[in-house]
């Protein structure tokens, strides 16, 4: 399927050096810029997807402020904070991964991708084991599953709907990101990325930053209400 053009592609070098843009682009930079713009448009759709959760949050908090305070009080700020730190570090490593790819440092690229993926795994594990599971056991669940007998506000099930809804959609994005990072790592090990071709690293990196950015807003809005 892959064909290389003999006139323009140097015979030697890595896959990334030999890469030639798809036929409808002028050159690799043209392709890179176009893909990047596509990724930014995709990111804006992601932001507007989460916008729904944020608007739902704002309206329901406006209607039932006490329920949100009571519900937020039952979250563990420690785990939330730890998860924020984990995600921020992963955001840094993915930025470093892009930098490594730009500089052609294959080892550093793989290292940063692995660390990012480990952080992502840590995030999901913390979320599931230390946050979701205890709450599930106590019955602090959304809507009709709510069975926690010690609620202090009758609207608390709504709060749990917002909490689980927004964090679950966010966690889904983290898990998708883990898949993408793994894909990047496999390609990086094959030497697919270099200073002249790192479009995929850049795109996934941007996606990962948006996931981080959403959490930057979710953390104070969910955990730090009083």
């Amino acid at each position, binding site marked *: 399927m892959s064909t290389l053009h003999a006139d323009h592609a140097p015979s030697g070098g890595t896959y990334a050096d030999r890469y030639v843009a798809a036929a409808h682009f002028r050159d*690799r930079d043209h392709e890179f810029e176009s893909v990047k713009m596509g990724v930014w448009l995709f990111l804006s759709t992601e932001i507007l997807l989460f*916008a729904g959760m944020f608007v739902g949050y704002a309206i329901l908090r406006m209607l039932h402020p006490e329920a949100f305070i*009571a519900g937020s009080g039952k979250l563990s700020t420690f785990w939330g904070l730890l998860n924020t730190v984990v995600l921020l570090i992963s955001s840094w490593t993915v930025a470093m991964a892009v930098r490594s790819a730009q500089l052609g440092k294959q080892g550093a690229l793989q290292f940063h991708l692995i660390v990012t993926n480990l952080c992502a795994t840590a995030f999901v594990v913390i979320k599931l084991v230390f946050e979701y599971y205890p709450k599930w056991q106590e019955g602090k669940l959304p809507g009709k599953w709510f069975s*926690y007998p*010690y609620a202090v506000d009758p609207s608390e099930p709504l709060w749990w709907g917002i909490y689980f809804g927004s964090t679950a959609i966010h966690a889904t994005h983290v898990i998708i990101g883990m898949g993408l990072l793994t894909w990047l790592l496999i390609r990086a090990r094959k030497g697919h990325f270099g200073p002249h071709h790192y479009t995929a690293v850049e795109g996934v990196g941007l996606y990962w930053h948006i996931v981080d950015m959403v959490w930057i807003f979710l953390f104070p809005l969910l955990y730090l209400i009083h």
Partner: protein
Amino acid sequence: MSSHADPHAHAADHPRTHGHWNPHTHVVVSARTLTSVLVILLVFTFLTVGAAKAEQFVMYTIGFPLPGWVNVAVALSIAVVKAVLVAMFFMQLKYDNPMNSLVMIFCLMALASFLGFTMLDLGQRNSIYPFKSEYIVPGGTGIKGDGPIATLARQKAIQDGTYDPEHAAHAHKFIPPGQDDGPGSSAQRSRPLKGLTLPELGAAPPAKHAEHSEHGKPEPAPAGGH
């Protein structure tokens, strides 16, 4: 989107080789910048937690009733600063084609319109005819019309004999002893609350009216029923 948005799109017809290198397209951000940004982000993360604790201290320990918007305003300002840092440096918008920033700006304008107008409506719905928000009952009438789910959950626990009144009066966040006289909800307490009367069986917990709970109220409650 204006005509000068993309100066490169119809520039000279570049040969589609790998050699074309636009320094504006590929900016390598220095590791020092990235690391500094990470450090700032971490500092801001702890700052936002610290600010929330400080607000609690002011409200519950000193007893000064902060208005509800302070919590949201502080949390969101810090989050916005963090998000801007991530966008500018990690996501490289500072160095990038301005078109991508424009995409983000349009996206945020759509978000602002979504949030703004929805809140305008649901926040002002009772401003002319007060009855228009009366139907918003805390906790609702229940799925089968037999009471809020939180109340039903408590009833069920009492029937099952798993209800522990001691536990109900305790909560999960640590607040130093002797400082529990503030008007916070029980979720803020680690010790038995003085004077807490458990809601009567079968009835919704006492509704907390806007007049009585200045603290922790992020927005004026439209459901307050003036």
